[in-house]
């Protein structure tokens, strides 16, 4: 296990600038409390996300490669990433370019510079579990989320494909659950940890996504969860936003807040609720989590 590092390069990614702003805020809050500096990369750009990956193979590697080079230029060899999709794209790129010299040459042609390699993308969950460790996390908890029933939802990209996402079990990931336990919450086992939420089909096939989200929420409800913890902006958006549609179209109201796991962490570590932008969520948070918010 690594000795705890004091500074990482930080790649927030587009979502965290926009609709997942609260994820960014909460993550930074947690890391500040841990005493770890996240230095945001200067001039970072989009990783291409699923869009580039669908449309243009070269672009899907060139975009992350550009950002990886920025990490190198900033003098760091590891980059912390919050967004599951960004993490997946950057990590896939490092692995692919290491082995595929032809692709590497093509990417370099696009970048108009050498792809230097040697950068290790790390998801913040990975950093928290492997470098920081549960003991230290536990030590920082000032307002434990006592008896709050949380189901952790990992979705697809945090554990798949297993060659890329290597820090947790492919079939039964537990890192987020363990963190929730450290925060004093009850990590509820449920069967949907790694099921898909429909992801970007949310726009083109919204009825499919609605079905998937319904199943997820139902299981969460059946597991008597009070809140769903996530680590992916798109998962959050789908699970949160589609509850409104379910209400409108199917008359089902789950009232299930969907929070970024760092939001819950920050809360347990004593951050002010105002700071954590709970108001940005569509499903009302106050009524379920009131007790914890107002601690």
């Amino acid at each position, binding site marked *: 296990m690594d000795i705890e590092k004091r500074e990482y390069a930080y790649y927030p990614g587009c979502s965290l600038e926009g609709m997942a702003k609260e994820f960014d805020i909460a993550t930074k809050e947690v890391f500040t409390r841990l005493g770890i500096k996240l230095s945001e990369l200067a001039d970072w750009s989009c990783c291409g996300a699923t869009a580039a990956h669908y449309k243009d193979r070269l672009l899907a590697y060139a975009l992350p490669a550009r950002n990886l080079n920025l990490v190198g230029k900033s003098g760091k060899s590891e980059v912390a990433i919050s967004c599951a999709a960004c993490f997946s794209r950057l990590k896939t790129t490092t692995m692919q370019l290491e082995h595929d010299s032809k692709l590497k040459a093509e990417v370099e042609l696009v970048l108009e510079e050498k792809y230097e390699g040697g950068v290790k993308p790390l998801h913040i969950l990975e950093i928290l579990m492997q470098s920081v460790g549960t003991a230290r996390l536990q030590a920082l908890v000032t307002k434990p989320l006592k008896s709050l029933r949380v189901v952790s939802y990992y979705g697809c990209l945090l554990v798949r494909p*297993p060659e890329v996402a290597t820090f947790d*079990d*492919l*079939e*039964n990931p537990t890192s987020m659950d363990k963190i929730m336990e450290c925060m004093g919450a009850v990590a509820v*086992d*449920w*069967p949907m940890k790694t*099921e898909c939420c429909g992801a970007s089909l949310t726009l083109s096939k919204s009825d499919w996504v609605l079905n998937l989200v319904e199943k997820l929420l139902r299981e969460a409800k*059946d597991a008597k969860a009070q809140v769903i913890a996530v680590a992916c902006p798109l998962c959050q958006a789908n699970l949160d936003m589609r509850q409104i549609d379910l209400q409108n179209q199917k008359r089902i109201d789950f009232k299930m807040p969907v929070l970024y796991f760092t939001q819950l962490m920050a809360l347990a570590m004593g951050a002010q609720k105002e700071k954590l932008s709970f108001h940005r969520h569509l499903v009302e948070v106050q009524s379920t989590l009131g007790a914890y918010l107002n601690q």
Partner: protein
Amino acid sequence: MARIGVFICWCGENISRTVDVVKVAEAMAGVPGVVTSVEYKYMCSDPGQKIMKESIKNDALDGVVVALCSPLMHEKTFRTAAEEAGLNPFLLEVANIREHCSWVHENKEEATKKAIAITRSTVERVRYNLQLKNITVPITARAMVVGGGIAGIQAALDIANGGHEVVLVERTPSIGGHMAGLSETFPTLDCSQCILTPRMVEVARHPKIKLYSYAEVESVSGFVGNFEVKIRKKARSVDTSSCTGCGICQEKCPQKNIASEFEEGLGKRKAIYVPFPQAVPNKPVIDRKHCLYFTKGKCKICEKVCGPKAIRYEQEDEIVEERIGAIVLATGYETLPATFFPEYGGGRYPDVITGLQFERLASASGPTSGELKRPSDGRRPETVVFLSCAGSRDLAKGISYCSKICCMYVAKHAMLYQHKVHGGKAYVFYMDVRASGKNYDEFVRRAIEQDKAIYVRGRVARVYEKEIEGVKKLVVKGADTLLGEQVEIVADMVVLASAVKPSVGAAALAQKVGTPYDQHHFYSEAHPKLRPVESNTAGIFLAGAAQAPKDIPESVADASAAASKVQILFSRKEMERDPYVSMVNSDRCFGCFSCEAVCPYRAISRKEIKNRSGEVLKVVAEVNAGLCQGCGGCIAICRAKACDLAGYTDQQIFSAIRGFNTTSTYEEEVVKK
């Protein structure tokens, strides 16, 4: 000066159509040392062979080249003929001018030139052929069988009944293997123990079988017919000669909550125990990891209650040595544990079990006396889902192969379940049903048609626990690919037909024995079709599931085949082998032992060269001709050229190279004529 005869075959028109054989004969006649060079329509015919044989005698030949078809075809024929004529057979070489020349070239001039070159090169090579003699190796007619499952038992009995002594080594306290733990067997549904235990008893009583149970192979040295084996007899803490097997120790032992290996963890055993009632030998063993005396230093109840005073706490592992002529590896298999499948909740949900565990639940001698109960709460399972191919044929799980036995035992399980829980529902998720074997498909059909097992073609993605009406149920989510639908089944129990893999330690044993294994650690056979029960190492034979997943009939057939191979080997006092073995010139060898490193057969040993007063001057390599298979790897790696390979000596190859690149002007003129 050599006296070489060259005999060129027309092979009817097969060679002569494109090779001017007369010219070849003429060209060879001009080669120094060639005393006769003739061509004939069919050299392999009796009159053709006669020409060669007479020439060997009349011309006092000391080397022969026959230019004809591939040596794979007729080398043996002509060498035998040469021997009959009084010539050492290894002084004859074949020049392949048919498969490698006349059949693949159309231009007659070019083909003739090439035929001349091939024949010339062979002439140059044959000058340096040595008179070789087949190697004879003495044979110790005593076999060792490793593994006391059904394959090992069968092999041991067959060899012993053939009149040869057998040493049977079993790792656990009793022989019997997995078969002893099965409930009923497909496709007849006869009781497994009923057919096995008589065999086990026969082993125990057989005067020619020496059984080492609770023992492991420590090391193997030597070679076919002459192995020296060290066996570690693990400390049993019980003197088996005085123990009567009364069982009082087991009864009185206070340590009772140890998961029983035999019961696949579903039952309990004591710290001193006999694994199962019919065990052979029926003598207990102390599990020192759990024994109170060994862990805490006090108890000794077993010693106190033992009438014949057979408890030996101070016993240590013992190494015994055996001289052996052949080894049968029958180390069997194990299956992937349920914990290997987190997606199915293996290890988390007690009611997700493996096929072998189901066998115990269904077995009349099992922890539930054959009643089907859920391990979690003892309830009768109303719905059971069987998942075949759990891990098998799944590259994501690292297993590409089919475990072969599962389709059949899953059908059997479904049937047994129906017989025990009337009205219960058995679902089987499958990828394909592979039931090729005598009465096998009929058996599966019976499961489906008579016993109403519901077969769903598709795989299961996830199993999770869900409390429904106060009962913990298992939700099985999968796909029905025939209907193209996702299915969800709420079940009481899930049985994983988890993949078969070689026993733990199979690879380590292979390394001790010096025999190859594949990436999954299954032992490799010498030839997948023609030598399925032989390993690549002479004298090492394979039986049962150690080589690949196999069911009982196959394992038994294998075992008998291996036993028969052993007996063929033992049918002679000495064994004859090709003389193509490596040799070391100990004067040139300076002992870097690169050869030792690259030898796949561990045929290189170290020999000390001493002076008259016994001081070691140097250590050099020595080839054990019994082990050497003649690959020649040692020679290519030897910088000092201290090794050489009989039949393929450096000098022969050197001359062949020189012979090829040289076409003398004379030969060229012959072609142009």
